[in-house]
């Protein structure tokens, strides 16, 4: 999903830069700048791929664990009882690939339990399960 975004964006940017430099300085600078931008695109696609490969989650009896990150590795343990609401979002490109992002909200702004790129059915299942568990275990402030 993100890879598709990166691909589309880098092709567009490459074309744009190429055209601008073509207009400004002729064919050679145009081609060079387009190639450079494309190479950057490939590099960031690789980063994005690693980043999403590192994203994993685990449903335990009382809490949800979300781990992510390659450079900075983060692991969040969010108890179901602390969940305030579950949010499922799907941007245009995500919709194209039938994917959704599930986000858990707690009262703490830093909790940050987000699981992107889930299959639509899996996202719906996770949402229902989390809501159910959250209701049965809800704890006050």
């Amino acid at each position, binding site marked *: 999903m993100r890879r598709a975004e990166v691909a589309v964006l880098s092709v567009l940017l490459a074309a744009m830069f190429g055209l601008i430099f073509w207009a400004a300085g002729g064919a050679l600078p145009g081609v060079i700048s387009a190639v450079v931008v494309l190479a950057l695109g490939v590099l960031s696609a690789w980063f994005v791929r690693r980043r999403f490969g590192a994203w994993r989650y685990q449903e335990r009896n009382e809490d949800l664990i979300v781990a992510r990150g390659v*450079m900075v590795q983060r692991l*969040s343990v969010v108890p179901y009882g602390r969940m305030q609401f579950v949010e499922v979002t799907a941007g245009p490109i995500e919709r194209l690939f039938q994917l959704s992002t599930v986000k858990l909200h*707690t*009262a703490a702004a830093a909790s940050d339990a987000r699981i992107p790129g889930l299959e639509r059915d899996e996202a719906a299942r996770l949402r229902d399960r989390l809501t159910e568990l959250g209701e049965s275990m809800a704890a*006050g*402030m």
Partner: protein
Amino acid sequence: MTGAPGESAPPEGEWLRLHPLTPIARIGRLVPALVLLFLVSTVHSKAENGRVETDYLIAFTLLSAVYGYIHWMVTRWRFEGDTLRIETGFIRKDSRRLPLARVQAVDIVRPLLARLLGVSELRIRLAGSGGTDGKLAYLSEAQAAELRLVLLAGHIDSEAATSSNTGLPMASVDTARLLASVFLSLVTIVVICTVATLAVLDQFEPKTAAAVAGFLAVYLLSAAGVIWRRLSGQYNFIAVEAAEGVRIRRGLLQTISETVPYGRIQAVRQVEPLLWRPFGWCRLEVDVAGATARNQRGEGTSVVRKALLPVGSQQDAWHLLARLLGAPDPVRTAPPGRARLKAPLSFHFLSAGHDGAHAVCVTGRLNRATTWVPLEKSQSIRRVQGPLQRTLGLATVHVDVAGKRSRAEFRDREAAEADQLVAELTALSRSARQRGRRATPVPSGAGGDAPSGWYPDPAGRHEQRYWHDGRWTEHVADGGRRSADAPTPGP
């Protein structure tokens, strides 16, 4: 603050108005704006034609008085069973129902003019979602105090409510210390240095000095505003122990009387700024889950940070802390020595630890900050490891509580220790939460029909207190150990 809570509740259905002096007291809110307007226009018209016009000021004041009168006419309130209903609004009607059971805190605010007129404003904050705060401006002082007791009576047993006026003072700040502490703050020192530099510069290069002064005027004025707010806001600070929480009174021109409820404390922070450390002073702040104002992003609970002690000695702070969290003193350990490479400036402060009920950690570079978090309140546990930390085999563990900035950080711990911490803290928070949840049917004294058993201590001094036959007993328990302590504080 007199009168039994039962009597002052007016019979249902009777609409009550605010104090007749309300329109005049409301003008007081405009005074700063009017003064500013007057100054600006005076300077302006002096430059223009040398005359000072004041007609519009009078018109302005009259207009606001008329508006205030209309507002007073359309505002009314009454009790409808267990609900306080406030209706107001002339063009846009606004009708609020505040269920007494959800009243979280009641603040009494008295701006200068209101104080002179003997009226005060009542601010009611609710628990849970919805974001409806009630405001009654203005009531007579006696009425406001009575109403506060009525509103908070649902929380606690009535015996404690009446005795809450005579609670023991927990901490106070005398004027000399407040002045010294404000003087020893960064803002004040920067302002004084800047002004001194400008004065020196004025001797040699008057033109440059004038230009620089003009440039810095806005910053200096706002800094002066900050200093003034600190002084006037915390003047005459006193914290009193009450049944429903710590009651704080403070203020120079505008006095504020607010309550920090024991059960709502998310985190306590003790800050020791660099300049205060030679005197052994510190500041104590609490994060309290307050009324929920849902913003656009749908972040749930709003958390207010309140100064529990603007400046005080370590003993004062410890005394307050003992009352709020039951003197949590887990063993703190420092991170391994190689953490110095990652955090060279803050390493000498870093330490953290936890026991069964609390996590405590020390952080800070110049200002040493110690944070206590009750594990019962933890929202999530996180482990974060940056690239440098991975190289050094370190990791940081966060215990998040409600709010944007409040959390305890076990910074730069041994990676294996961090893993273990995550598992331990998760388990401990879970059991702390379950202890809390079992005790959810808190007996609200008035009804008194809750079954006998252990419940969280309403005074917050102990973990649990035994409830029997419609009243609190002297039996208390801390971490499974039983002892005895009389239920209501004070004489």
